[in-house]
């Protein structure tokens, strides 16, 4: 599936209201664009999103810093290859998540300035 992340054709926030008690198929509810398959349910080729920027674990050293170096991982080429292979499914799933427009949704993180003052609390 080669979709442009910027258009988010499968973003339920841009389509019908969710959740849906009418048991309508999501591909119908989301309107235009290719139907989104559940992550992990399709062949890898079918799920691979387009990548407008280099992969996070790019091993290209032609003047650029690789994702491993950015991440502070000093690894052998063998380890890099193993992690790059394993990370492919994660990247695919993250690309699906990035299609959602959640601009107006605050993250589910609570900053608590009083935590160190709670009995037993640790800063």
């Amino acid at each position, binding site marked *: 599936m080669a979709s442009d992340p910027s258009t988010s054709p*499968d973003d*339920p*926030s841009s*389509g019908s209201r*969710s*959740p*849906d*008690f*009418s*048991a*309508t*198929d*999501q591909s119908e*509810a*989301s309107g235009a664009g290719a139907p*989104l*398959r*559940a*992550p*992990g*349910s399709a062949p890898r080729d079918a799920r691979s999103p387009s990548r407008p920027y280099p992969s*996070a*674990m790019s091993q290209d050293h032609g003047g650029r810093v690789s*994702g*491993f170096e950015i*991440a*502070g*991982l000093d*690894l052998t080429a063998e*380890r890099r290859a*193993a*992690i790059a292979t*394993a*990370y492919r*499914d*994660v990247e695919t*799933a*993250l*690309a*699906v*998540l*990035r*299609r*959602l427009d*959640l601009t107006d*949704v*605050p*993250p*589910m*993180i609570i900053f*608590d300035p009083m*935590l160190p003052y*709670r*009995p*037993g*609390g*640790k800063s």
Partner: protein
Amino acid sequence: MSGIPRARTIEALAPVLRAGHLSPVDLLEDCLDRVAQFDGRLAAFVALADHARDDARAAERELRAGHWRGPLHGIPIALKDNYLTHDLPTTAGAPGIGIAFPRIDSYAARRLRQAGAILVGKTRTHQFAWGTTTPPTRNPWAPDRVPGGSSGGSAAAVAAGMCVAALGSDTGGSIRIPASLCGVVGLKATFGRISRAGVIPHSWSLDHAGPLTRCVADAATLLLALVGYDPADPGSVDRPVANWTLALDQPIRGLRIGVCRNHFFDSNQSGVEQAVEAAIRDLAAAGAVITDFRLPLLDFGLGAIFAIELASSAAYHDRSLRDGIVAHFEPDVRTLVEMGRLVSGADYLKAEQYRHRLARDFADIFQKVDVVVGPTTPLTAWPVDTPSVAIAGAMESVLAASWRLTYPYNLTGMPALSVPCGFDAAGMPIGLQIAGRPFDEMAVLRVAHAYERDHDWSDAEPALTAA
């Protein structure tokens, strides 16, 4: 051993222990005999408590003197090897690699001791609570199959009767998955209900502590023993505690049960699908009102759980990454921890935004239903060292499939329980997952107990053979 009820449950054992018809010492010895007979093959335990016999004798003296501490008094319970204990080493599945954990009691261990439970030993975890296979532990229903994970040792120990109950931890399904695969009950209460103080962290905002038991009533009993506000856990919440045992034996007529028809039913093994559909029909026959719905947002969840779990684990293991200790981790766990460094901050926060949206969607769902039911896992216990199996006609990675139906409730922090609901053609247990609105464990337990009461799946026992 005479005097031990056939149903080796807290519910059955507590009255006979209290009445003096059974000694805690005899009950413990029976459990230890089973460990000696079967654990050579099952490898569920990593350590047994030397002083458990002393504790059992002390419980016996107290009970004889009429000092009954409650239903856990004299009950042998095991702890997953990521719960700190003052009297047993904790390794989190990583012994001898240069990481030492404190010899202090976790909150849960302390509460269980106060309740008079006999802490019989530590059960095997998939290293650092990652993973769903828990090597080398085997499934009591078929020793050539995995027990699930990461609390696989706890599930196998309970299923094999080597302890009466056990505690596990659940970050993406690690209580419910092995409970489903081993045919026992596994409960992940609402995030914040049970303190994680003294449980080795895996992913702070996803981790839950909870029980694995032989029946729903026992899960309610252990929940009651473990809940309570604990300032030592920043995620602990100060909420009223209900007597969840009151949920038991309540009719479910008129209760509204939701069935999420996407995601949870996209791709399941046929045996799982049939058993769960039969369970839904049975719940309807018992008077529950069944409502189907779809939640399209679930299709975006895998990236969210990956981002949070991987990044959190990498942050927790930062010292090991820096010092090179990760080179001594199990290969699969090392890769996961190292991958966590690659998750960007933007993706992590997007995942936290996603959680908010998903929780809001579930809140909308719970305007119309009281609980949501579906399969716990899309597959049953798979053969050891098998990377992929056929699910709904397609080969799929067992690791990817095994947590697909459980992690949504870690993202939302909702209470969720797995209760046995049948067996597949190979005789492997199947789990029915029941989830509720936050802090409504009562509804979850009520439906689970009503289902369990009308079926005899929990009475089935694996045919164990000594090593």
